[in-house]
């Protein structure tokens, strides 16, 4: 369980401090601290049931009684604030008697089915009964029993969500689940019903507890009232041991704990490993259940090599021999520059670096990238967008920001953890919060104002904010004049017209940016995926300069994947920063002079048959690159393709050699989160079958090409460390940048904007293989706003034909009240949706037309 830290406590200044005595020991703590927290700091343990460090105290369970001199009644320490001179006893006879009575009360109607309860062994009630309870019950009546409809036994077993099962009889009504759901996640799918001794927790009538944070409810339930299908009836907790790890699906670096069983080399669950600076102890479901792919029976366990057009199992020796031979031939015949590589930003630092070395030293090629699902990437590391990416960002600084702007981000679906932070700021702080998006997202719940702009008009929104500030004298006039020289847009009114955002809203944001003392401003995937990301970034850099945000704002384009930031820092892109290139040259004694190509350029060259050999580590460009035809046609023309992944994918299908890749749970790896913080994921289990970590694969391939290439792990790690030490922030230019609004042009009939998103419970291309996540969503769909659906007479579940200039797919409709604007959303996580076949890389905004398929 998460511990309260100093950070949650009021700040320490002399007049803010309070001195009290707990069990005879004097302590001084900040005003506003609770007695429970103060005792904790002293190492004095007070038992609790309903207290949670991240939720407001409710004083419901009454387990945390203490005696305070001069106060006649027992006090609940979780809600009692310290006062000067307070004399507290946490273990007096009265306190002990009070706690005993509480345990007795709680056990009155508790089923005591510990032998079959999954919480056994880690149950607060079990533990506290042993520690503080009595041996005997004085209760001589029939225990009250909730029985689910249709059940004949007195065992309550209600599936209240795709994953969650509720046993109301075990519930001790600590309300933690309902409180967390409401306070921390903003969800109302769980509630309290009835009164008194028959009060019960239950799903809201007609609803499922299926929000993207629902797994936390199971974790924080102090007893076995809430269990999930992931863990229940599978193993007893005392047979497992734990390994600390990091989430591999999000970029926050959420801290996790694997529960594994060594004899079976199997992971049984993931829980939080609370870190207040990063995650506050909350896990999105994709983080919690995503580990299941590690255990999947579909995992690739041996290398496969193509023989007579068919992939057949092979040994590593055979596979490496073929790889060495074929890559060797290409290198010999055409030069190493005819080889390229694409690596996944989910891989650890060592794997990324080993791949970089393989390409740059082994092949003397600069054809490498880690961004397999973006179009028209910046060529240069000093492009405006890459500069924006490089800016420092601290997750915890969201908490006390007074202005928060999220721009182009369907927040929960890409940065769930940061959404929770913003929600916290919304609940507890005084921040002005703005969500600026091309369609209304669920972040509207935690925004003071949501600005919805017309798809593809991002730079006009930014210019509009700047111009409104200039026009209304909110910023330095001289700077305003300079700004105007670089911006063809004449006025905020014009920007408002182009972007569809009213001027009043633009001005409101401008005002906040002008006044804010601690501003958090970040962009999300809608910007990162935009072909015009550099233009938008230029507009933002101008805004930064115009408002003089330096020193009072953290403004950055957030990394999306577990190690995107690491890949950026280690130079896993065609033109790394000069410092990185110099460092690499120093380390290796050489650095290729050959032209550098990003993913798009490599794909284009493959199509032109100029790149003939290709290595893919953990990426699935065929599924995720926003132009399926473009990638597929190219890859089919390759002479030789090696793909390493956890599963067979659309991309491995086309490979000459497929290598089984170890997952992040199967080897020790280091990952750099979006803040630039390096964290370790320890090895929880042995790699499945013959799977190998990425760095080993890269090293083995290098060795197969040239035995000199061999590097041991220590060497790799030492190089990585030196690279990470380099300053990664790229300064902003000294003057305003040219920002000329761009338009996409008409697309005729195809005029409905389509956004590719992650499903609420999925991330990237692997999570389909996690059964628990599949319980939430396993089929592709198209999310349609209600208004549009009714215009087109499309009902929930109807088959919808989705057509673009280049493709057509049929998807079931999901009518979603989250989106109200004229856009449709399709998740990219389901391989059967083929959604990228609708996309064209040259488009700024993808547009489609949709119609109901008549049966």
């Amino acid at each position, binding site marked *: 369980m998460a511990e309260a830290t100093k950070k949650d406590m009021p700040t320490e200044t002399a007049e803010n401090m309070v001195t009290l005595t707990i069990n005879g020991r004097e302590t001084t703590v900040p005003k506003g601290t609770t007695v429970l927290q103060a005792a904790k700091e002293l190492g004095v343990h007070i038992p609790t049931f309903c207290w949670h460090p991240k939720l407001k*105290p*409710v*004083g*419901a*369970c*009454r*387990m945390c*009684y203490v005696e305070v001199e001069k106060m*006649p*009644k*027992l006090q609940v320490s979780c*809600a009692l*604030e310290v006062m000067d001179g307070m004399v507290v006893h946490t273990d007096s006879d009265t306190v002990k008697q*009070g706690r005993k*009575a*509480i345990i*007795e*009360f*709680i056990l*009155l*109607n508790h089923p005591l089915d510990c032998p079959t309860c999954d919480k056994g062994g880690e149950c607060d009630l079990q533990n506290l009964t042993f520690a503080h309870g009595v041996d005997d019950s*004085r*209760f*001589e*009546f029939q225990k*009250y029993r909730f029985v689910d409809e249709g059940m004949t036994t007195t065992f309550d077993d209600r599936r209240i969500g795709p994953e969650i099962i509720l046993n109301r009889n075990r519930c*001790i*009504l600590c*309300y933690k689940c309902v409180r967390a759901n409401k306070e921390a996640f903003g969800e109302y799918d769980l*509630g*309290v019903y*009835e*009164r*008194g*001794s*028959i*009060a019960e927790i239950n799903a809201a009538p007609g609803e499922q507890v299926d929000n993207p944070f629902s797994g936390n409810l199971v974790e924080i339930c102090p007893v076995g009232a809430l269990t999930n299908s992931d863990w229940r009836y599978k193993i007893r907790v005392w047979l497992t041991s734990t390994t600390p790890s990091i989430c591999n699906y999000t970029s926050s670096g959420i801290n996790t704990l694997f529960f594994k069983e060594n004899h079976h080399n199997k992971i049984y669950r993931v829980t939080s490993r609370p870190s207040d600076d990063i995650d506050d102890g909350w896990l999105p479901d994709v983080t919690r259940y995503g580990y299941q792919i590690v255990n999947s029976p579909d995992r690739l366990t041996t290398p496969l090599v193509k023989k007579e057009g068919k992939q057949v199992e092979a040994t590593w020796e055979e596979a490496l021999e073929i790889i060495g031979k074929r890559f060797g031939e290409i290198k010999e015949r055409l030069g190493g520059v005819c080889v390229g590589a694409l690596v996944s930003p989910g891989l650890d630092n060592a794997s990324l670096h080993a791949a970089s070395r393989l390409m740059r030293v082994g092949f003397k090629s600069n054809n490498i990238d880690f961004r397999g699902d973006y179009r028209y990437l910046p060529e240069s590391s000093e492009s405006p967008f890459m500069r924006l990416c490089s800016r420092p960002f601290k997750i915890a600084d969201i908490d006390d920001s007074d202005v928060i702007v999220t721009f182009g981000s369907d927040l929960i679906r890409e940065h769930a953890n940061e959404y929770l932070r913003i929600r916290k700021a919304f609940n507890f702080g005084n921040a002005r919060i703005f969500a600026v998006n091309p369609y209304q997202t669920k972040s509207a719940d935690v925004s003071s104002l949501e600005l919805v702009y017309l798809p593809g008009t991002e730079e006009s929104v930014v210019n509009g904010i700047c111009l409104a500030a200039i026009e209304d004298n909110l910023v330095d006039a001289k700077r305003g004049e300079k700004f105007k020289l670089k911006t063809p847009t004449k006025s905020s009114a014009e920007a408002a017209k182009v972007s569809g955002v009213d001027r009043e809203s633009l001005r409101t944001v401008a005002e906040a940016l002008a006044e804010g003392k601690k501003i958090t401003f970040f962009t999300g995937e809608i910007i990162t995926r935009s072909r015009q990301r550099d233009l938008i970034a230029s507009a933002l850099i101008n805004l930064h300069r115009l408002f003089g945000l330096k020193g009072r704002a953290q403004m950055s384009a957030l990394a999306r994947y577990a190690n995107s930031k690491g890949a950026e820092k280690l130079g896993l892109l065609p033109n790394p920063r000069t410092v990185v290139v110099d460092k690499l040259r120093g380390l290796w004694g050489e650095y290729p002079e050959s032209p550098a190509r990003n993913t798009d350029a490599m794909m284009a060259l493959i199509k032109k048959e100029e790149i003939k050999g290709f290595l893919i580590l953990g990426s699935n460009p065929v599924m995720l690159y926003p132009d399926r035809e473009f990638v597929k046609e190219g890859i089919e023309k390759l002479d030789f393709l090696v793909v390493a992944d956890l599963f067979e994918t659309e991309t491995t299908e086309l490979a000459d050699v497929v290598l089984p890749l170890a997952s992040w749970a199967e080897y020790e790896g280091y990952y750099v989160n979006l803040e630039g913080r390096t964290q370790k994921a320890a090895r929880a289990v042995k790699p499945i079958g013959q799977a190998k970590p990425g760095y080993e694969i890269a090293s083995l391939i290098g060795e197969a090409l040239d035995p000199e290439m061999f590097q041991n792990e220590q060497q790799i790690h030492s190089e990585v460390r030196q690279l990470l030490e380099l300053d990664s922030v790229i300064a902003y230019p000294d003057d305003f940048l040219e920002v000329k609004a761009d338009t996409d042009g008409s697309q005729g009939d195809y005029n409905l904007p389509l956004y590719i998103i992650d499903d609420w419970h999925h991330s990237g291309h692997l999570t389909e293989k996690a059964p628990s996540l599949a319980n939430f969503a396993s089929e592709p769909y198209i999310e349609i706003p209600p208004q549009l659906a009714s215009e087109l007479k499309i009902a929930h579940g109807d088959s919808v034909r989705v057509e673009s200039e280049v493709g057509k797919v049929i998807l079931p409709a999901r009518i979603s009240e989250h989106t109200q604007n004229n856009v449709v959303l399709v998740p990219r996580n389901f391989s059967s949706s083929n959604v990228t076949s609708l996309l064209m890389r040259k488009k700024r905004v993808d547009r489609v037309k949709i119609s109901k398929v008549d049966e």
Partner: protein
Amino acid sequence: MFYSPVITNAAEVASHKDLHLFKYVEDPKQHEIGTYQAHGGYKAWKKVLNGMTADQVTEEVKKSGLRGRGGAGFPTGMKWGFVPKASPKPRYLCCNADESEPGTCKDRVLMERDPHGVIEGMAIAAYAIGCHLMFIYIRGEFNHCRERMEQAMNEAYQHGHLGKNIHGSGYDLEMIVHTGGGAYICGEETALLNSVEGERGMSRMRPPFPAIEGLYACPTIVNNVESLASVPHIINRGADWYGSLGTEKSKGTKIFSLSGHVKRPGNYEVEMGFNLKKLIYDPAYGNGMLEDKKLKGVIPGGASTPFLTPDMIDVGLDYESLQTVGSMLGSGAVIVFNEDACIVWVIKKLIHFFRHESCGKCTPCREGTSWLEQMINRIESGEGQPGDIEKIEDVCGNILGRTICPLGDAAVMPIQSAIKHWRDEWQYHIDQKQCMVKTNFDFK
């Protein structure tokens, strides 16, 4: 529309120089604004608007010594003074009209028969705390009260006593009539606030107190109907006059709801400190015991207050005097039992109520009231076991003073006193498996 058939001492009040709350409650037209105004209504409101500052109003009420009539007896003016002056947040006033304590039925009479008096009191209180939106939270079952209050509110708006720029003073005040969903706990002030917010009616932890952080986390004053209805009289006749009534620490007048085995159950407005024995036996009030049976005991302040035995009833009905005999004034519901009442049966009825009404938030009350009910039912039905009484006492001790809100205390205090005063009767029930007293009956 009809009056609820409740006896009052309106006639006495009408001719009395100091009693005031019930002066016109028997006038069938008093609920109409014309009549109310003809009787001097809204004069206090205008006086406040035309010449008093908010602080002056609060001071006046402080000086009068008025204490809360909802049960706790907290000084009203002092409570208003807790509203932080500097807070930029809006302030709210909630009139607590959830009257659900068994035996209590005074607020209902005021709302039904003199609704403008309540509104005028609310308006003055709102003015005193700088509030521009006030609520009245009416018990869900009180349909008639709701209709009366809504009608009166509409009239008040029409006559310019509510709304914008009231009587040209520049002061704005809006009012909302809100009805409860039928839970006793919603009368507890913090549960009431949750209920108004649309949340589940469950008590909140204090601190923060509502005056600092109440409705929608803004400063909020919750006052009982009777407390507020007293305010216009204080403004009209002055704090000194009000302070001259009652005892040293319990000022003014109070309505007592007399019920049970008396000849004339009803609502009686008397001066604080009025003698309980007189209230029961005087022909002007209770007029003695029903069928002249012997008195067994009295609950003086609503179902949640400890019993008094016949030897204790020569006592003043005020906060302090009742405390000295081990009970409380509470909401002023005096429930009288004669010798035929089996004490175990009475307690069974009471614990049933409290068990049913426990909101379920805190462990001792939620689990304890249910356990107590089962044990008490068992004794009442003749299946009590040796040791049950001690166990009940012990469980009561584990609830008393250990819950979030006073409902837990309310549930156990009558039980504790019933065992203290009539232990032999409980023991008899267990040993003989029947009532010690002859007859059993139902509450009417």
